[in-house]
């Protein structure tokens, strides 16, 4: 439960945290699928709303992955609903704290690249989105030089 130390809530909210993430994978921890999807869901929601283009990019980005190939449509939908629920109740920061902790190792740059792609998908980058990407970079321990290269290529990808 190391992720609790990363939240601003403190240990007093342990029970609440458990009940929010509870039932996802027992013990209040997120599954690898939920952790990965949660990061991208955070990217979608970090400007305060779910833009159609961004949700589209989110679903495309997840659906192609082997990580999700064993989930059927119903399970996939339930997973997104749960993550959405956490965002609504506790906010994006809270979700990301839990997700980063449980993200499968080796997928940090993948999560970061796809988060950049989602944020850029509607053709506008708002201040909230810039702050989200900066904070995600730090939490995922991605060097700022690498992050710049990734962000720059994603900008090119989403031009036109």
């Amino acid at each position: 439960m190391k992720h609790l130390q990363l939240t601003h809530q403190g240990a007093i909210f342990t029970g609440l945290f458990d009940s929010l993430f509870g039932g996802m994978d027992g013990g209040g921890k997120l599954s690898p699928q939920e952790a990965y999807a949660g990061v991208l869901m955070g990217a979608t929601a970090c400007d305060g709303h779910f833009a159609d283009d961004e949700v589209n990019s989110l679903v495309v980005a997840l659906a192609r992955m082997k990580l999700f190939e064993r989930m059927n449509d119903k399970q996939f939908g339930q997973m997104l609903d749960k993550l959405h629920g956490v965002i609504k109740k506790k906010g994006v920061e809270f979700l990301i704290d839990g997700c980063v902790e449980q993200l499968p190792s080796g997928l940090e740059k993948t999560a970061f690249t796809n988060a950049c792609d989602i944020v850029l998908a509607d053709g506008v980058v708002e201040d909230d989105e810039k702050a989200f990407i900066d904070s995600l970079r730090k939490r995922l321990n991605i060097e700022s030089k690498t992050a710049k290269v990734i962000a720059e290529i994603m900008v090119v990808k989403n031009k036109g």
Partner: protein
Amino acid sequence: MSVFDDVLGDSDAFSEKSFGPQEGFAGILIAASACDGHTSDEEVRGVMKILGRMNLYSRLSDQNFGSMMDRVLGVLKKGGPEKLIQKSVPSVPPELRETAFVNACDVVLADGVVEDDEKEFIDQMMRQLEIDQDRAKTIIKVMVYKNKG
């Protein structure tokens, strides 16, 4: 002389037209999805999602978008990816060449496997879209990150 040649004379009203920027960009991505020998409906839908978010296509009605895609897919069906690339590359606006290349890499890498004909396609795209080799390497590296897992 065929009957049509007699009727149409030198008029080019019914001859094959060159691609505009919209067909050109779409053509690159459809060729990317077809370069391993087949294009699935799913791949075409994936390409349409990429195009759908672009301002380049925002003024097209659904019907016009559909007929634009028909023209692109028609060239693929008749002439294969080679012919489609040949027609598409010159009509991609210069400021969107890199964007076309990045998205073509994304399409090729999306299934997590890169076959030999896909590698060849990416090399060919790099040359034809005039992307610097080091730049292409950076782009491919980032698109590999994007398509992992």
